[in-house]
């Protein structure tokens, strides 16, 4: 939201969860924020960056999540309030540092440090649906989980105080259905912050010796636990002694309330919605368990609350042993995928023996029939005019011609789509940021065991800086035999075009020094060649040549992300059309079937390829794909 900091105190706005988190941080007087983009977390730092100039706070997109967390922690150690934000996969990158920061604490004058982590249940845009609540438990640090944009603001704001009070960083855990949900939020005041940064050098902040620091951490956590027992972020609504108690967190709260309403169970079911999840508020939960005979746990992905409710019940003298606890263990709530209102409706109606029909059976049947007859999937694909489509085309051609069974190790970005039906499926191993190059360094050492297959790591520009550089150093030093193709499209395209060390501007739009990837690779001893992916012939030849050579070779395929180009230029480079006379129709079909640009569908009536004007971006690449010269392009007048 533009001008997030300018919104008036006391006014009620419609805020997205991520905006509410950013606003909460501003209201808490945050002065330093850092992160690395990743869906669904990116809008937090983006919104803070948007507010940086007028509030005087410092905001950066860091090279990766570990550095972001370290940078934010430095500000905290020097007495400022600081925030780091990332998606779950990114938290894994930051863990090494965080695991030790819990032990060391934030020092004598530490400012509050809040680490926001956004989980992605269902894996809408992630390679996992990992549940980061366990991380807080394993590190013994506090974790708050908001259930609505309003709570996101309030909890983030309070988390800074909590962090300062406990001398420990705190997690705020978000998830897709909060980060990307909008709701009414009442705004508080954004204060003028006077704090000056100063790091007190009479102290050393370090987890060594580990044992006493661990003991101190547990003491600090126990104090937090006392606060959590009476926190207003845990609330109950329903009858005094409910027939069934729902214990839930996150979006489980609103889904449960709505399901109770729809099933008319308001007299029988109560909802205990927890917002302070670690340390687990056992005393509070125990009190509520003692007032019911059946419990349903409504939470997303892992049974985190469930096992702690079970543990609480087991240890408590107040809770009858006959208490029944339903949830993931009993199969009433699934253990994979995101939570939905329908899952809660189903679980509740099962437990009360009710028939719940969302709609009339004959409509249901008609809808089902239409779905099976007509619905086809819509897989993800590269944008029309995307450089990646052309790059992977050349990669496939070159590896086919090379003929030694070569393959790609992939990475995280728009080019991940090569493994989808939209791509060429040349990517044969794909895991985490930077892992493409890491895997390739290992594959490139296997010739001594008889492997003759060439390996090419593909990675994007932002990914290169994020985690590929150490792997590339490793390849050079250990004399691996591999190639890296750097798909340089001048942006972190997948997450919304954030800058990175290779772009000439920073998070708030100021000019920034560019780290030249080409020179960097040359500097560490790689052979570097550059090509334009839209030059399909030239790129394929360069690839073939490099495949024949030994050592660590880098091919930089440089062309702007089409969406970035379009934003900047606001024009189509070419007018493109299919010459119906020359198109061989069903005898060929090569362009649409194999190249698969959405701007170039098949016309069922004429049985020929056609350009769909409303979709085509006019890049002109398909002209070079057609073996019969049937696609033509012309620069606009």
């Amino acid at each position, binding site marked *: 939201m533009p001008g997030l900091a300018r919104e008036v105190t006391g006014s009620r706005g419609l805020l997205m969860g991520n905006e509410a988190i950013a606003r909460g941080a501003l209201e808490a007087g945050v002065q330093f924020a850092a992160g690395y983009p990743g869906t669904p977390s990116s809008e937090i730092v983006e919104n803070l960056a948007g507010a940086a100039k007028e509030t005087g706070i410092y905001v950066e997109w860091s090279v990766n999540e570990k550095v972001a967390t370290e940078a934010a922690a430095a500000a905290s150690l020097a007495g400022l309030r600081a925030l780091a934000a990332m998606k779950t996969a990114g938290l894994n990158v930051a863990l090494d540092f965080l695991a030790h920061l819990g032990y060391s604490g934030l020092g004598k004058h530490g400012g509050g440090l809040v680490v926001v982590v956004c989980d992605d249940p269902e894996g809408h845009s992630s390679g996992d649906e990992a549940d980061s609540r366990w991380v807080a438990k394993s590190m013994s640090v506090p974790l708050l989980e908001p259930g609505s944009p309003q709570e996101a603001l309030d909890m983030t704001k309070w988390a800074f105080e909590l962090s300062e009070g406990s001398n420990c960083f705190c997690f705020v855990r978000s998830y897709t259905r909060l980060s990307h949900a909008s709701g009414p939020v009442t705004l508080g005041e954004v204060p003028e912050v006077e704090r000056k940064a100063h790091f007190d050098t009479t102290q050393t902040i370090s987890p060594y010796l580990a044992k006493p620091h661990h003991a101190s951490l547990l003491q600090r956590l126990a104090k937090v636990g006392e606060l959590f027992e009476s926190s207003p972020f845990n609330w109950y609504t329903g009858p005094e002694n409910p027939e069934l108690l729902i214990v839930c967190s996150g979006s489980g709260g609103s889904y449960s309330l709505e399901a109770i309403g729809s099933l008319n169970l308001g007299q029988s079911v109560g909802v205990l919605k927890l917002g302070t999840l670690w340390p687990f508020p056992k005393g509070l939960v125990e009190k509520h368990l003692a007032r019911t005979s059946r419990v349903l746990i409504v939470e997303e992905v892992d049974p985190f609350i469930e096992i702690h409710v079970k543990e609480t019940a087991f240890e408590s003298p107040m809770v009858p042993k006959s208490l029944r606890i339903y949830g993931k263990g009993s199969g009433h709530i699934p253990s994979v995928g995101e939570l939905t209102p329908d899952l809660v409706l189903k679980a509740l109606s099962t437990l009360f023996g009710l028939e719940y029909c969302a*709609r009339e059976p004959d409509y249901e049947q008609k809808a089902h029939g239409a779905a099976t007859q007509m619905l*086809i*999937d819509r897989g993800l694909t590269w944008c029309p005019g995307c450089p990646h489509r052309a790059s992977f085309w050349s990669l496939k051609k070159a590896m086919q011609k090379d003929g030694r069974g070569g393959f790609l190790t992939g990475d995280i970005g728009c080019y991940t789509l090569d493994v989808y039906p939209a791509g060429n499926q040349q990517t044969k191993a794909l895991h985490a940021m930077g892992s493409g190059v890491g895997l390739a360094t290992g594959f490139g050492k296997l010739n001594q065991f008889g492997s003759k297959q060439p390996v090419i790591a593909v990675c994007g520009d932002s990914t290169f800086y994020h985690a590929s550089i150490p792997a590339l150093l490793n390849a050079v030093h250990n004399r691996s035999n591999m190639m890296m193709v750097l798909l340089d499209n001048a942006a972190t395209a997948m997450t919304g075009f954030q800058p990175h060390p290779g772009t000439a501007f920073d998070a708030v739009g100021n000019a920034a020094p560019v780290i030249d990837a080409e020179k960097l690779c040359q500097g560490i001893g790689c052979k570097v060649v550059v090509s334009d992916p839209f030059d399909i012939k030239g790129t394929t030849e360069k690839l073939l040549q490099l495949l024949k050579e030994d050592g660590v070779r880098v091919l930089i395929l440089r062309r702007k992300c089409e969406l970035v180009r379009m934003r900047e230029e606001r024009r189509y480079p070419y007018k493109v059309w299919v010459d119906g006379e020359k198109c061989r129709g069903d005898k060929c079909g090569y362009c649409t*079937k194999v190249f698969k640009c*959405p701007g170039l569908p098949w016309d069922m009536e004429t049985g020929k390829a056609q350009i769909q004007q409303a979709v085509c971006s006019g890049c002109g690449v398909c002209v070079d794909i057609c073996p019969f010269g049937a696609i033509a392009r012309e620069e606009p007048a």
Partner: protein
Amino acid sequence: MAIQEDPMNLVISGVGGQGNILLSRLIGRSLVKKGYFVSIGETFGAAQRGGAVMSNVRVSEHMPLGPLIPEGKAHIILGLEPLETLRVLVKYGNPKVVTITNSQPLFPVDVLSRKAQYPDYEALKQTIRGLSQSAWFIDATAMGLGLGAPIVANVIMLGALIGIDLLPLTKGDIEAEIKASFPPDRAELNLKAFNMGTDSVG
């Protein structure tokens, strides 16, 4: 203005890059200004990359709601692409649902590679009609191309939605929101598109 159902559930569906989120935000902000509780849930996965996207917009006079609409409970479906209207309709539809569809198909990658066939358009239209209380079809992409900007098809569709008058919003409410959201030159184009949309159902 009272809403006919409380909560009122609107689904906006389309293909990544068509501008779902702009619409849900324009509608949401105007409704909040009028004092309604609005909740929006966005499903867009990997932002722009040509997959199916959906916004759930929920409006109530009394209370805040969760971000997702339960299955079978949509009152209005605004489909920016016909197949995407159907995708949402079979899940959220019911005999009372009103659908408004941009009639321009966008072909999924399985259709491009000829692994699947895009349904016959007339049959698709019939099916959508059969599952809706009333169904509107608007050639918004062609109208957008006419304005030299196929991208504004989404705002044309928003015009159609406001034109059929099921939401407690006036033309003026959205026009004000458009003016506040765009720089002047882009606002003008979008206002033109919006008015084309309202006229198309008038």
